[in-house]
């Protein structure tokens, strides 16, 4: 039986392997989640990542809102939104919007596929520790759900000025948020590290 140190309070605890499916083990002292047991974690993650990729493409190809006033119309996609900030000289802000709404979700999807596709066929991709650490780090900077709230606020703000037509990308956003949230909780980290252990010939 192996030990685990809580990453939020450092308490040493025994890892109990027989927790029921879809449940999580929490730290006995501070209440942080120690680990989860997710059945079919690999299949689940791959399926959600592929769905996420399709939705991501739709979310970026189609405009999310169109704005029409006295015959003149403009529409915006994610990229053109970031680009118009860049054109106003706000390159730092454009970069931030690009990273949090386009770069981070895309990297999250690609890293999931990179890590879990080979695992599905019993192989271990190269640089898996780095890939896994990057995945965790990048998830924190994915803010599409906040962008979605931003769209709703803008809708209210603009309906008084002009006709607003919600675009196809809007529905893709909703799907992408649901799928990526589910994908993030489908990842069973311990599975990855155990495979790494087997490959290293330890244990």
């Amino acid at each position, binding site marked *: 039986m192996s030990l685990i140190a809580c990453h939020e309070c450092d*308490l040493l605890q025994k890892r109990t392997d027989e927790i029921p499916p879809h449940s999580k*083990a929490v730290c006995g002292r501070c209440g942080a989640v120690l680990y989860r047991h997710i059945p079919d974690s690999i299949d689940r993650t791959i399926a959600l990542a592929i769905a996420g990729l399709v939705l991501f493409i739709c979310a970026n190809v189609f405009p999310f809102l169109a704005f029409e006033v006295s015959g003149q119309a403009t529409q915006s996609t994610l990229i053109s939104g970031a680009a118009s900030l860049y054109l106003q000289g706000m390159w730092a802000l454009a970069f931030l919007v690009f990273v949090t709404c386009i770069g981070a979700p895309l990297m999250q999807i690609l890293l999931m596929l990179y890590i879990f596709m080979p695992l599905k066929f019993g192989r271990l991709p190269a640089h898996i520790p780095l890939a896994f650490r990057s995945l965790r780090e990048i998830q924190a900077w994915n803010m599409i759900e906040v962008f979605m709230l931003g769209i709703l606020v803008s809708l209210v*703000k*603009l309906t008084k000025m002009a006709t607003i037509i919600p675009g196809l990308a809007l529905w893709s956003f909703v799907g992408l948020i649901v799928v990526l949230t589910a994908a993030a909780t489908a990842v069973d980290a311990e599975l990855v590290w155990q495979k790494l252990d087997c490959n290293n010939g330890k244990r």
Partner: protein
Amino acid sequence: MASAKQASRISALNAGMIGCHSCDLVVNAKDDFHHHLQCPRCGANLHSRKLNSVARTWALIIAALVFYVPANVLPITTVVSLGKEQSDTIMSGVIYFMQSGSWAIALVIFVASVFVPLMKILILVFLLVSVQRNIQWRPREQAKLYRLTEIVGKWSMVDVYVVTILVALVNLGVIADIDAGPAALYFAAVVVLTMLAARTFDPRLIWDSKEEVE
């Protein structure tokens, strides 16, 4: 929820071990605690506690506080409509929504843009003082406060996105045009800095001084 069975009431640090932050492997570090250790399983650099966590978190919070002022005082958008120019700050935006009856939206913007960043900064200051002064008040509640700062952080970005969307859509020359103001940048800086501060703070420090009390 299943609570993990406890092996002890002792932290990894006091047991002479380090839990790998990347793969959760517990490594015995008794022999060379002060040397440069690497995780034997995943190769990550092992640190018992985040390096200089308190000093770094203070620096990030102070920087965030400095930017918080221009973020609220300077205009976040400038609306040009039929030759007239009007600048809006975050608060004047909130007041506009209140006056036009959109209470829900006014509340969303006020909470996300004004209340959350300030609350996050205050919580982190409290946690830092608590760690530095060994305040013994309910460590479990302190841990909850810390988790709260991690969860709510990104929602403050909502106003930056609203500006992005307005700038992208309302671009009709003389009829109507919206430009992003300098506050948008300062505000984004506040959000990023407080997010970094929350990630730099090491919540294990909350418990270190409480070990003997247990």
